[in-house]
């Protein structure tokens, strides 16, 4: 019910077209890259997914995360812009359940964007490489991993947007965080646990134990963010 309500709210804000457009833009990256300089990648060792993600994932993730930044800012902006939040608070709904339904909506849309990108990767592999026997399994594992590492980032972004009533503040913080993530060295494990840096990790070709550490890290961060949201709502209520 609550999620359905959120879907109705975003109807005329351009939320859905923005995610579809962003997904198509991110999916165009590997296709264009392969079309322009395929000979550079065909000689490389490794599986097709590994080669293509290694070449394009940086830019695709950047687009995904920026899309999430813009989307989450907008979701709470529509609430704060004309004091709709006050009306929402007077309804017999928990504030956390609003957060949860917004999170479900954003996560679902991010999944949708990832599916478009998977389509592009399949298309490229089919056209330029040979689909090996383990292709589908690797593809599922790879994008499942990417999706999981995306989650803490989305939840943290929503938390920031909920905390800041002005859109430019949450957008500014989001942009600064994305920028910080691009500056962090990916080799350092502790630093790359920063929620905005995690989506830049690639599953294919990395050590299994290290991937397991990242998955544990992502789940822990999700738990911390969820708890922080519950506490934040309670604390803010008592000060308003």
């Amino acid at each position, binding site marked *: 019910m609550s999620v359905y309500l959120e879907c109705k709210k975003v109807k005329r804000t351009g939320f859905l077209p923005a995610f579809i457009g962003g997904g198509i833009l991110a999916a165009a990256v590997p296709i264009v890259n392969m079309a322009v300089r395929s000979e550079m990648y065909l000689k490389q060792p490794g599986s097709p997914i590994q080669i293509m993600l290694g070449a394009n994932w940086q830019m695709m993730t*950047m687009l995904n995360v920026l899309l999430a930044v813009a989307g989450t800012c907008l979701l709470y*902006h529509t609430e704060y812009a004309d004091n709709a939040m006050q009306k929402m608070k007077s309804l017999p709904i928990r504030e956390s359940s609003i957060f949860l339904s917004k999170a479900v909506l954003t996560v679902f849309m991010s999944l949708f964007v990832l599916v478009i990108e998977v389509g592009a990767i399949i298309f490229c592999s089919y056209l330029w490489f040979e689909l090996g026997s383990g292709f589908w399994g690797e593809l599922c594992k790879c994008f499942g991993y990417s999706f999981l590492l995306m989650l803490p980032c989305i939840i943290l972004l929503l938390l920031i947007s909920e905390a800041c009533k002005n*859109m430019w503040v949450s957008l500014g913080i989001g942009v600064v965080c994305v920028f910080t993530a691009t500056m962090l060295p990916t080799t350092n494990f502790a630093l790359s646990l920063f929620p905005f840096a995690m989506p830049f990790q690639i599953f294919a070709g990395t050590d299994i134990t290290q991937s397991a550490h990242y998955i544990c890290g992502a789940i822990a961060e999700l738990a911390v963010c969820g708890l922080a949201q519950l506490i934040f709502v309670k604390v803010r209520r008592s000060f308003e």
Partner: protein
Amino acid sequence: MNFLTLVGVEFKKIRRSKILFILAVAAVILWIPSILNAKMNFGMQAEGISPENNFFIQGFMGMAWFMFPASMVVGTVLLSQTERANKGILKMLSLPISTAKLCIAKFVVLLTLAAVQILMMTGVYYISAAISSGTQDYNFILPTLFVLKEISLIFLSAIPMIAFFWMLSVCIQTPIFSIGIGLASIVPSVLIINTKAWFAYPMSYPFFVITAEYGKLAANLDMAQVELIPWIPVAALIALLCLGISCLRFGQAERR
């Protein structure tokens, strides 16, 4: 109302917006890795660049690539949303002021924000250069005149880009599209600067200019240099076109 008063009014509106705080945080975050990795500047003999030049240019390349354009997108959101939040724009439009003047006044504020951000970067640069000089026992501080020349180059080359972002935020009413297009247009600038058509893409100007400077300072690196002839006319045309369109479109959605 004369133009300067209008600009003054626009500055008053953003006084409590915390935008300067965000810009300052970005500037500080940019230079922290440079201080921590100051030692790496000594290993650049292959490129033939001196450590102090490398320290300076790497930091500013990081800024010109993503942080600076993205902050400008945030700035456009600030300028448009402060007005739309409580229908302030309707009151402004009901005053006997030409809308084009109002639009240009807001653009001047945006340019000032850009200048402030670059100056903050420079300030933090001097602090971090002083710290690194202390830790590495090597003078990282460059002469002021050289630094001033570089930062004014970045600022001037960014004007068409800022005009483009301003046009986006004026023409596109739904905020997610103006933000989304703005942020998404920054990402491919890394690819565009390697092509021959870079001068047609205003978002890549600051980054192109700073990489060209890097090529000049590093003796062994061959970076594409700025060719003034197609660039200056095209850049001026883009800037004027974007500003013209935004002046025409400013306030039209509200007047309908």
